[in-house]
Every structure is written in C-alpha cells, then in structure tokens.
C-alpha cells in the first residue's frame, strides 16, 4: 500500500514533487515572515527601552499598539 502511495502508478514523481515544492515554499515563507516579525518586535522594544522614563510613559499611555507589541515580544523571550 505504501509502495502504491509512493509510486502512484508511475505518476508519483510528478505528484510528490508538486506537493513537496508547495509545502517547502509555504514553510520557507512562513519562517521568513516570522523571523522578520520577531526582528521588528525586538527592534521596537529596544527603541522603547532607549527612551527616557517620561517619554516611555507618554508612548505607553497614548499608543494602543505599543503595549501590545511589548507584551507580544516579552512572551517570546
């Protein structure tokens, strides 16, 4: 049964290569996107850290997004 699944009556090489190319591309794009997201989260967090205490308070108070980015970044640490 496994041999039939792999060979697919001679079409296995075409079918499996199509599925493998698709899955490999999807995984590669997912990992690249995740890496870029984490990089920007990290850079954003370090930019916040560089701010003076007053500015930091203002940013965290006025921005809806900044606290969420920081909490998301802290979760990954």
């Amino acid at each position, binding site marked *: 049964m496994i041999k039939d699944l792999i060979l*697919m009556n001679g079409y*296995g090489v075409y*079918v499996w290569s199509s*599925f493998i190319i*698709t899955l490999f*591309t*999807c995984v590669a794009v997912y990992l690249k996107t995740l890496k870029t997201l984490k990089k920007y989260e990290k850079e954003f967090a370090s930019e916040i850290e560089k701010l003076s205490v007053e500015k930091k308070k203002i940013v965290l108070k006025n921005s*809806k997004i900044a606290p969420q980015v920081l909490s998301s970044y802290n979760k990954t640490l």
Partner: protein
Amino acid sequence: MFNIFHNSNLFKWIEKLIYFINSIFFILLLVALSFALILSPADYLQGDSVRIMYVHVPAAWIGLASFSFIALLSLINFIFKIKYFSLITKSIAPIGLMFTCIAIITGSIWGQPTWGTFWAWDARIISMSILAFFYFLFICVHKLFSDQEIADRISSIIAIFGAINIPIIKYSVNWWNTLHQPASIKILGSSTIHSSMLLPLFLMFFVLILYCALIFLMKYKTEIIRIKKKNLKRL
C-alpha cells in the same frame, strides 16, 4: 466608514487570529492532504497525476483572487487616499506572487505527463506568467521607493493596469485554442467535476486560504510595527 480597518482596532484582533489559525491549521492540513493524496479517486483518463490539481488549482485561484483584491483596494486608495489600504495590499502581494509561481510550477509539472512537455506557449500559461510579472513589479516598487506616497501611487497604477490581465487569464481558454483545459468548476452553472474530487479540492483550498490569512496577518503586523518604530524615532 473604514474605521474598522484602522491599525489600532485591527491590531488587537491580529494576535488572537494568529493564535486561532495556528491551533487548527495542522489538523486541517493533515485531513486535506489525506483526502488529496489517499482518499480521492484517480482520474479515468489522467490517472493519479490528477492529484496535482489539489495544489495547482487552489494556488491559481489564490493568485488571481489576491491580485483582484489588490487592484480593487488600490483603486479605492487611489481615489480616497486610505493609507492602511496600501498596507493591506503591500502585505497581500508577496502571498499572491508565491501562489502564482506555485500554480505555474505545479502546472508545468502536471504538463509533462498530460501534454508531454513542461512548457508550451499557451495563452493561459503566458497570461499567468504576466500576472507573476505584475506582482513582481508591485513588490519591487515598494522596495525601491523610500517615499511611501510615491510608492503607493506607482504600485496602485501597476495594480489597476494589471487588473486588465485578470479577465484575460480567466477567458484565455475560451478565447484561444489552448492546450490548457477549460474551467471544470463554474460559479454560475454546473461543474463538470465529481464530488469525490470536489471535496478534497475545496479542503485544500480552505487550508491554503487559512495559510494565506496567517501570513497576511503576520506581514500586516510587521508593517504596523515598522510604522510605529519610525514614529518613535521622531520623538
């Protein structure tokens, strides 16, 4: 009117949606792959090579739908200047390019056992390659121009101009005598494909749409953070 799409409103949902999709994705992927590779029947004429359809057709649908959506949002953005629409189009474009390329490559692989060649100067294949070229141009504009407004304007023109290619792709198999078969699945009218093949096809389509949503949300989140980071530097 478009406040629901505003970054601060969307951002709180992005994290939840990413978590939700991640939690159900692998189970759905396994079910869809089981149907596509094992449970669905072989075609009476094409044999098991028909299984390539389960990645080729959804990839082509996504490639076409993404560009249509980009063109629509670009047109609205061009007229009404809604900035976060350009963020959405910028986040969708790489996904559309990826699936257009997958459709071309898997179609080429399918062509070898079916037509006896990997490539033919066929109207459908050429129009799909032109679509990939428009995606490439759209992405390049955003990479090349540092001024966001200029990049948005040029990319909008590319998307609107490229939308002319969408009906050409759709009707190329009817307008010209091509190697590519006419559409088996029709929105209006009855489909010429059996339900035992339709189910895995729609399952794979659903899984790939979920994947697109996941990548889009991650890219959109990255874009928002990038903008917020720029604003921080201005303080």
